[in-house]
């Protein structure tokens, strides 16, 4: 059939044009936000939290902001590395009888009169439920680090829990510091905690309660007046998402935001940022150290002497000075040099290409006709991978590539999207070398067993597949020692062996330049946590 024009053509065109201009602005309205800029603080990150259940988020980062604001742990760690009781009435120790003499039984007394923000009382049942959720195979809890050592968990009374561990484990403090307590009364009835509504409408015992969320824009939190550590001094906390780092920095300059945390000011802007009036530049050491990871099962890297030679050929300090503008401190271990357990006797040996050449010669890797070293038919050629699209990391890779070329070693940069390189390529040790930044595995405890104990190959996080019986022994010993000086000595030895045998070569410890409005007090860096809002209940306007 042929359509006849029942509508005038011009009318149709006109009405089509007009209707495209009538745009839906409904559904964009959200509850009111405090008008006075002294009743609110605006905190910015580039990503937005997606999982508000503190047991379920995938990776420490933006989601820890919800955790820090809305939830509490049994104890926190302050910026000096001390544990501070939070929901626990006191920190269990051997001295106060909280930890048994054999180190296996931990009794925790809980604070009384703590309430969930819906008014229900907080009790030992909540701690028990949190533990049960962490070990529940159906729930996608990111880590059970430390919790798998719990043999029995007992609720003694409403305000006391007792846990017996299968073996003494001093870093157990960190297990409970990094897992926040969730409410039994709201979650125990859920058929599937993974998809529970609680995960977007959380109820906690924390300093703030989540009031509203505008997807892609911001989240508004209101102070919890009944907070057990005292009501926060700032009524509203606004978490604003600004995806572009430079734009966020611009907003910090113009005063549109009060705190610029978590993503850091670009290194090349630090001098400018430090000079800005009415702004505090906050140097924030992060728990991460950037390493070159060697896959010690690959034929090129089985000999510790070769790994050491490759390491000392690298211009580590130059990489820091030229690429990061000298901002990130050099470290020779998996810990920051300011960490209490850092071994100050470690010696800087980079960059020494002559010695590196000599060591490779001694190890039997001779230059072939093409100038590349080889031994038993294996060429000293390999790849190095990291997340694609990270210019500073790529610049480091290019520098190492040049350093190694001079000593007859060929490295090919093979960067891939994060979802590829950190998948099985890493966890099943398919890589040759990686350039990666990682924080220690058990909070900021010096225990590094999951990264370098031979038992952690395959199912742990010993992705370099490094084996050393002495390191195993020291690591086993370290987690049973309660004396700080003893532990310092044990982990000092571990650090020395790792520097001698180089399964992973430390490049630098990560620091960030954060920023806050000068009138805001309390915004402090804490190198022992990955979370910029760790002490949010203490923030106050001058």
């Amino acid at each position, binding site marked *: 059939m042929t359509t006849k024009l029942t509508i005038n053509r011009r009318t149709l065109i006109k009405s089509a044009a007009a209707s495209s201009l009538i745009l839906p602005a409904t559904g964009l309205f959200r509850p009111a936000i405090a008008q006075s800029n002294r009743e609110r603080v*605006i905190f910015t990150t580039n990503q937005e939290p997606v999982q508000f259940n503190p047991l379920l988020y995938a990776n420490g980062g933006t989601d820890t902001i919800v955790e820090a604001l809305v939830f509490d742990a049994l104890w926190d760690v302050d910026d000096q590395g001390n544990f501070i009781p939070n929901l626990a009435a006191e920190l269990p120790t051997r001295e106060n009888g909280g930890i048994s003499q054999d180190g296996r039984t931990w009794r925790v007394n809980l604070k009384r009169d703590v309430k969930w923000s819906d008014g229900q009382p907080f009790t030992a049942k909540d701690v028990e439920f949190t533990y049960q959720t962490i070990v529940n195979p159906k729930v996608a809890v990111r880590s059970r680090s430390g919790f798998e050592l719990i043999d029995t968990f007992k609720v003694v009374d409403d305000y006391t829990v007792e846990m017996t561990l299968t073996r003494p484990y001093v870093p157990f403090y960190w297990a409970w510091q990094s897992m926040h307590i969730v409410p039994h009364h709201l979650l125990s009835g859920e058929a599937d905690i993974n998809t529970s509504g609680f995960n977007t409408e959380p109820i906690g015992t924390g300093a703030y309660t989540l009031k509203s969320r505008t997807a892609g824009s911001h989240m508004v939190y209101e102070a919890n007046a009944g907070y057990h550590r005292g009501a926060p001094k700032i009524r509203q906390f606004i978490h604003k998402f600004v995806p572009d780092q430079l734009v966020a920095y611009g907003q910090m300059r113009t005063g549109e935001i009060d705190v610029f945390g978590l993503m850091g000011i670009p290194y090349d802007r630090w001098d400018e940022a430090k000079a800005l009036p009415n702004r505090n530049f906050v140097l924030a050491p992060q728990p991460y150290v950037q390493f070159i990871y060697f896959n010690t099962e690959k034929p090129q890297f089985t000999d510790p002497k070769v790994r050491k030679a490759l390491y000392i050929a690298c211009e580590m300090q130059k990489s820091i000075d030229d690429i990061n503008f000298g901002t990130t401190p050099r470290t020779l271990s998996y810990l920051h040099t300011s960490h209490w357990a850092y071994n100050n006797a470690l010696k800087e040996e980079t960059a020494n290409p002559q010695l590196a050449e000599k060591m490779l010669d001694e190890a039997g890797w001779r230059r072939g006709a093409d100038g590349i070293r080889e031994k038993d038919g294996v060429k000293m050629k390999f790849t190095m991978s990291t997340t694609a699209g990270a210019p500073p990391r790529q610049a480091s890779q290019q520098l190492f590539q040049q350093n190694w070329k001079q000593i007859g070693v060929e490295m090919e940069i093979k960067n891939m999207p994060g979802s590829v390189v950190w998948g099985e390529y890493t966890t099943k040790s398919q890589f040759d070398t990686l350039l990666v930044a990682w924080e220690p595995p058990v909070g900021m405890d010096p225990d590094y067993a999951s990264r370098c104990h031979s038992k952690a190959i395959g199912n742990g996080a010993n992705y370099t597949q490094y084996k050393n019986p002495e390191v195993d022994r020291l690591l086993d010993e370290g987690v049973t020692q309660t004396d700080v000086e003893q532990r310092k000595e044990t982990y000092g030895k571990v650090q020395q062996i790792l520097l001698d045998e180089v399964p992973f070569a430390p490049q630098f410890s990560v620091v960030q330049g954060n920023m806050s409005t000068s009138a805001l007090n309390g915004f402090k860096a804490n190198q022992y946590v990955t979370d910029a809002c760790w002490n949010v209940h203490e923030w106050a306007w001058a």
Partner: protein
Amino acid sequence: MRSDLLGYVVRRILHSIPLVFGVSVIGFGIMHLAPGGPLSVYTLNGSITAADIERLRVSLGLDQPLHVQYFGWVKSMLEGSWGYTLFGGRPVLDVILERLPATILLMGTSTALAVLIGTLLGVLGAVRRYSIFDYLATTGAMLALSFPTFWFGLMAIYIFAIELRWLPSGGMYDFGEEGNVLNLLQHLILPLLVLTLVLVASWSRYARSSFLEVIQQDYVRTARSKGLSGSRVLWRHAFPNAVIPLIALLGVQLPTLFSGALVAETIFSWPGMGRLFVDALSMKEYSVLMGTVMFTALLVILGNLIADIAIALIDPRVKLS
């Protein structure tokens, strides 16, 4: 005619069912066959071990055979949740719908403006071919198309938001101003400027060539030789014929109104679909990616259907069958 139109629409919808099914199979297959996966997000956590990764693979159902995962996803689509996000456990449809208004507002306004301005520029360029105006418009369009959006965006923010401080640098509202239309308009100006500039550039080129073709037709010459005024020939005779290909083009572009602008939304912190897609892609959030793929596929089908109907209504030569 109305019942015929209804019949036509129903037939087209029925025809598109296998298409949608095919898109879902291919989309799902490619996404899961591509190397890497969502679990890598966990690996970056210091405390995660290889054993944790395997446990999470089971908890999140990623260990299931691909066809089992696919039918699970189809079931959730039919049930209306469109699946659940891996990171957050929320219904995907909710996640998409909460982003949609912002994207429709930004993309709808910029496309409408671009169509109006671009068509006008195109008509003038075609009528005054090889005039100074035409050369300027052509050069301007080439320049606008050559510079990347992020550069335009950052420059606009630097000049108008940071140096001059005339306009906000991003977001939809100032805090405390939610729902204030004037405040919304202020926030809309910069992203609109950047997006419209690029869209006008391409749209003016389409319009120019479409009009050039039409005004060289015999019937336009006949109309002129009858002694009709220039503007009457242009707007009454040439215009309706020249806009037909443009309407088809608009139909094809409909999905972009909803899928959002990837770069502009990121630069201007605009809470739309584009950013949702970018975030989901970087985390390999399968369910959200599938949701956006299906959403776009449905819009492509819908856009083409609307364009075909509109053309049939405007152009008496076209049959709906």
